[in-house]
């Protein structure tokens, strides 16, 4: 009988072994001070921590620059971990967000007057008398759903603040954008990217050489999330071999799906782009040479988009080609890129691009 009355053993609800957690979650900034770069935005938002007043906000910028992290850190600092659950509603593209959800779920949440803060739970936090609704990836909301938000935002402005997070500010309808104060998140510069990566690597006890960090930064184009994920994947790979090896810059490129330089250079060579380590016999291949080179790439499983972007870098930065040749190539690349993103067949497009570049450089 006693055993029935005993409270059930408190099991931690989401018992995730911290070692298995993705590092991007593990090292998500906990406070506003932890956020890398974005000094301007952080400075403005920090003031709101003191003043208890928060406007509706619209965060926009390229992926991996810390938009979601910022708003999560901000609301955590405002409400503390206890009240966080009742005061913050986070909706993202994985939730159904059609017009009906705006009408019901969001409206209902927005309508509730926040309960008076429990003195114990809110100790040490400002706990302002409003709730926050975070609409992550708001650019994937339909126009109708966005339109339905307009009035909701105004009516309940006293007790609810909205924070829209998106990549493309142009996809947010004008009436919504004008109700928010906008914050632009810019791409992380190499140095803050490096600091953060080294911090994570140090905290995880992973030995990284500067060349690996360079490879991480160059493959991820300022997307911090991407570089941390790559670092973790590379660490997994190197740690799981026996004996645990060191992370190589080559591993990072393979994980990132970057095509090895040798392969791209060979391809470029067969198109007639002169390189350092290319034998010039390949150049005279003509149609058959190009066709063979393309087939090799396709068989290797490389993605056409990746080929295109790497070839683009080679051609545009090439020291010997004339301006006219480069601009001709640029036109071709642009056209092929459009075709590829329309879903055209990769092999045909690559072949077409190869032949046209080869012609343009002849």
């Amino acid at each position, binding site marked *: 009988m006693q055993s029935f009355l005993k409270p059930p053993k408190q099991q931690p609800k989401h018992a995730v072994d911290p070692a*298995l957690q993705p590092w991007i979650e593990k090292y998500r900034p906990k406070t506003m001070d932890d956020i890398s770069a974005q000094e301007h935005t952080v400075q403005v938002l920090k003031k709101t921590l003191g003043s208890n007043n928060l406007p509706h906000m619209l965060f926009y910028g390229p992926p991996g620059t810390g938009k979601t992290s910022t708003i999560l850190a901000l609301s955590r600092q405002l409400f503390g971990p206890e009240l966080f659950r009742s005061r913050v509603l986070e909706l993202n*593209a994985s939730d159904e967000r059609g017009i009906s959800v705006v009408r019901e779920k969001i409206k209902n949440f927005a309508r509730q007057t926040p309960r008076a803060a429990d003195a114990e739970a809110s100790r040490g936090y400002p706990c302002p008398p409003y709730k926050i609704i975070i609409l992550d990836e708001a650019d994937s909301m339909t126009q109708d759903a966005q339109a339905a938000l307009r009035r909701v935002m105004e009516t309940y402005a006293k007790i609810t603040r909205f924070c829209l997070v998106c990549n493309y500010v142009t996809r947010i309808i004008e009436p919504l954008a004008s109700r928010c104060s906008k914050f632009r998140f810019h791409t992380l510069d190499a140095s803050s990217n490096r600091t953060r990566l080294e911090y994570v690597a140090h905290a995880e006890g992973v030995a990284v050489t500067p060349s690996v960090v360079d490879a991480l930064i160059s493959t991820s184009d300022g997307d911090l999330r991407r570089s941390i994920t790559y670092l973790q994947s590379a660490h997994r790979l190197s740690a799981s071999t026996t004996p645990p090896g060191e992370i190589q810059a080559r591993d990072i490129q393979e994980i990132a799906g970057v095509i090895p330089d040798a392969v791209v250079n060979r391809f470029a060579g067969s198109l007639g782009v002169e390189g350092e380590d290319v034998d010039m016999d390949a150049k005279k291949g003509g149609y058959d040479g190009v066709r063979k080179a393309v087939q090799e790439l396709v068989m290797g*499983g490389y993605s056409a988009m990746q080929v295109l972007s790497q070839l683009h870098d080679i051609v545009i930065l090439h020291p010997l080609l004339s301006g006219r040749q480069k601009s001709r190539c640029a036109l071709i690349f642009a056209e092929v890129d459009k075709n590829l993103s329309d879903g055209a067949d990769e092999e045909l497009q690559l072949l077409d691009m190869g032949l046209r570049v080869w012609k343009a450089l002849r």
Partner: protein
Amino acid sequence: MSLWVDKYRPRSLEDLHYHPELSARLRSLAGSGDFPHMLFYGPSGAGKKTRVACVLRELFGAGAEKLKIEQRVFLTPSKRKLDVNVVMSNYHLELTPSDVGTYDRQVIQEILKEIAQTQQVDLNAKQRFKVVVINEADQLSRDAQAALRRTMEKYMSNLRIILVANSTSKLIAPIKSRCLLVRVAAPTPEEMESVLAYVAKKERFDLPPEVASGIVAEATGNLRRALLVLEALKMQHPDLNAEKLEIAKPDWETYCTKVADLIVAEQSAQRILDVRAKLYELISHCIPPSLIIKTLADRVVEQVDEALKADIMHWAAFYEHRMRQGNKKIFHLEAWVVKVMSIYKHFMFDIDLTGFDE
């Protein structure tokens, strides 16, 4: 009595015939307990799915091979019912989004959330998480891919996703950055020959090296196709050593060659009509139009002057792209045929056809 392709499909990572480094990596990842989301990509017939199945076996043991098919009903927002067949074992679940057409987002959302919110029941299971395998991930709509983004992060504790795709070009960047990319390249001719020899040995017949290399040359890196051809060949000619063997091409390929011959042989309005009838024939036998245009272009290019090759390929790429955007495939196939004829005639007889292009 199953096909050789299935009969000799490697069941575990040790049995895989090529890419030994990749297998070693996969094994150590599966053993480390820190298994990431993964994205397998590579050309078809390179062995992506085989590797996924092997990884699942490595993760969960033989239990992952006990498959059952379940029929699930989903309700779309417009109250339409969708029946989806889901292949699942106790530990994993396979989805092919192209089965559900435009409603893939709803299905992905519901299935993933359901899996993510239930924990592994089997206490003896080796891993705490379940795996969802999404085949043909490059066919997922943008919406569905967006829906995957947060789910992949949020439910990491009891869900792992394995995506299988032919190319990463059509996957959005956020998905790629959340996965460990695994490139499965097509096997080299030598590797394919060794696999063919292995199968021949298991089936106890003699495979002359010339036949093997002939099959491999036909298959262009597609091991599945090579094995199917080998089996068909063995059925037709039980004794592979005896006579001079013709490696049979698929019917549609020979048919395409014929059409290409027609195009090159004569360029006239009547010939366009003939070709058109043949194209209809191909389409009605469910040969994908983009494959038709690709094969045709290849065959035509073999027979024309060097100066024309680049142009013909360019227009093939151009009309293939149009075909994706347009509605009626036959229009674009025909347009390409007419274009090729015009270029060819222009070149051969030096007739000024510039007005025709507009």
